[in-house]
């Protein structure tokens, strides 16, 4: 497979995952805004921060009004992280890598772009927002379903899955970090009573509030939420789950190509060193410090995959 094709598949799935995460984040922010609590503005700021667009947003807008933030995150073509920009880039990547996709996967991606273009053609009224966000999540799920249902389990499939889980791990870690700082202004407050509603928004951001309850009942604490999102291997958006998948897919690539690569060792190291410790250890060293380290490691793994599999020509 061409390096360029591998890169296209990797980025197609990363960008689709990012549109989905973006919809989840907006949904969480919108819930808070709906409650008219005083923290709505802080919440929108944290959502912009965790999507990495706070700075560019503030260059354009002076305040965090729901209407402006939602429009910026969904429809602003000047914002490369808006849903409409992301889906366009995902679809362009799919076009570039199209010869390695099944017809179903290509069509699902193309239809996702067509449908979101229609859904986001005009500013989204607050009344229609939940439905539009559901469409975004659904389009991403349809592509993922087509991938799982029709793709040959070859290198192309592995690159698609790697994109999905690298992006998802990044997203979950960022949500945890930004929320943690927002909710816990002082380290001294760890373990003390924290507002349950606020912690629930973290879970809601990753569509996990119900599954969390199945496992933990109604006890919500910083420690148990962090453990759930970082270390629970059954939870499909946790860091541990993402890394188990990443490790598997890198292993399949190694056996298909018959050669060992640095990225596989790096992934194993992240699994062992960062994700193989009890949550208490993580908190002792500082959750924020842990997350910063994890994000850096996740980024360097992405760069290593790119280099191991010749996504780009480094010489020219």
């Amino acid at each position, binding site marked *: 497979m061409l*390096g360029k094709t591998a890169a296209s598949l990797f980025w197609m799935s990363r960008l689709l995952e990012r549109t989905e995460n973006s919809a989840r984040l907006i949904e969480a922010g919108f819930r808070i805004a709906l409650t008219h609590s005083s923290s709505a503005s802080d919440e929108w700021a944290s959502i912009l921060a965790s999507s990495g667009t706070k700075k560019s947003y503030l260059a354009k807008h002076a305040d965090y009004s729901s209407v402006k933030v939602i429009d910026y995150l969904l429809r602003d073509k000047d914002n490369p992280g808006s849903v409409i920009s992301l889906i366009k880039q995902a679809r362009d990547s799919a076009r570039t890598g199209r010869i390695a996709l099944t017809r179903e996967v290509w069509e699902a991606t193309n239809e996702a772009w067509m449908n979101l273009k229609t859904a986001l053609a005009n500013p989204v009224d607050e009344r229609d927002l939940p439905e539009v966000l559901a469409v975004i999540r659904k389009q991403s799920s349809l592509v993922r379903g087509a991938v799982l249902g029709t793709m040959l389990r070859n290198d192309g499939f592995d690159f698609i899955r790697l994109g999905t889980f690298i992006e998802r791990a990044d997203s979950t870690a960022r949500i945890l970090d930004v929320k943690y700082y927002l909710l816990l202004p002082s380290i001294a407050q760890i373990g003390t009573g924290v507002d349950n509603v606020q912690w629930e928004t973290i879970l809601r951001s990753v569509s996990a509030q119900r599954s969390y309850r199945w496992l933990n009942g109604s006890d919500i604490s910083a420690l148990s939420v962090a453990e759930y999102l970082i270390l629970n291997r059954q939870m499909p958006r946790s860091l541990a789950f993402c890394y188990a998948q990443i490790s598997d897919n890198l292993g399949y690539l190694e056996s298909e190509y018959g050669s060992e690569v640095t990225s596989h060792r790096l992934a194993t190291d992240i699994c062992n060193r960062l994700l193989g410790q009890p949550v208490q250890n993580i908190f002792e060293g500082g959750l924020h410090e842990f997350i910063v380290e994890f994000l850096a490691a996740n980024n360097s793994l992405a760069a290593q995959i790119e280099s191991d599999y*010749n996504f780009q*020509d480094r010489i020219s």
Partner: protein
Amino acid sequence: MLGSDGNAREPYIAYKNWLDGEDTKRLHRKSEDAEAFFRRTGITFNVYGEDEGDERLIPFDVIPRILSAGEWRKLSRGIEQRVKAINAFLYDIYHRQEILRAGRIPVELIANNIAFLPQMIGVNPPGGIYTHIIGTDIVRTGPGEFYVLEDNARTPSGVSYMLENRETMLHMFPELFARIGVQEVSSYPNNLRRSLAACAPPQCTGKPVVAVLTPGIHNSAYFEHSFLADQMGAELVEGHDLKIVDGRVAMRTTQGYTPIDVIYRRIDDDYLDPLNFLPNSMLGVPGIMDVYRSGGITIANAPGTGIADDKALYSYMPDIIEFYTGQKPLLENVPTWRCSEKDQLDYVLEHLAELVVKEVHGSGGYGMLVGPAASKKEVEDFRAKLIGNASNYIAQPTLALSTVPIFTEKGLSPRHVDLRPFVLVSPDRIDITPGGLTRVAMTEGSLVVNSSQGGGTKDTWVLEE
């Protein structure tokens, strides 16, 4: 569809019987289905100068254009003769130039021609083939009367539409195909791959590795490039995926650089090799011409092939065919005035309002004048351009083109069409896919069928014997 007596012409009888029994509403619905189908599968083309996200559909018409087996036989024999002559001409023009020595075509036509590549002089392309893939544009003027409008020997496009139009028709009207015997076109991608592989270069030792070279996703024909690569099971590469490694053209794969044997390039000569042609081009591969000359790669179509579909050369095509095959051309050329010659220019200027005038190097329906359809002012403006640079133009009469019906809001309506059959040339055989791309002028009375000018397409049926 109808003959001069008002009855369906012979190849259309079975179809017309079916159509007469069809509900118009159902056909309208099918037309809409077809559009949604094309959009979903992304069968679109990009329009230069517009928002890059703006991809257009080429309008598709649900009424097929039908040719009888007899008409097709006549056509394909004529095309085969032409294609052989073109390859012989290209070999000659880059070697001994017998045709110039014999005085059959003027030396200036080659010497001053930007499509002629001096870098190709004395080069022997693998298998002796210059143009592997040709699209010959043909119009029908009456029963059994076909004219060749032009030979697209450089990089003919549109074959993906021929294939997808048929897929769409099969999907929408399966019962029709069960009733009427239509020759299949779907073997084209296999034939293309076989044909390209048969032209593998001398340095190829194993199974030939084939790749399609595209300028990238913003090119107007990107859909076709990825479609053909996909259907052939070949790689789709861009210039930056390639470099010269150990004297071979190699592509960057996830496991390092792998040599390519045959490259079906969909970029023009000028962009192929910045070391040999345009130095600033990022689309090509630096040094590919050197590998080519040393037998390390096959380039299809060969560089310099464009000289054969130059519009100024077109008027000499009957002479070229006779010179290399010793036979009279089986398919006629449209009479053509060369504006580079004074007496012919005078005639053209006098009859401008009746003629079609084209740029010698133009394509896509740009920069042309359709006299009968143009306003007085347009004709006069064009006259000034023509006088200013006469040798840049040729002129042709507006033929009494036959029409075929399209399906409109108000029912069937006649439109002008042309036909581009696709030809594959390999050292051992010539394949002409039974059918081709029928292009339709969507405006009533218009003669311009180019998709860049709003033209549409329809499925082309060649009936079984």
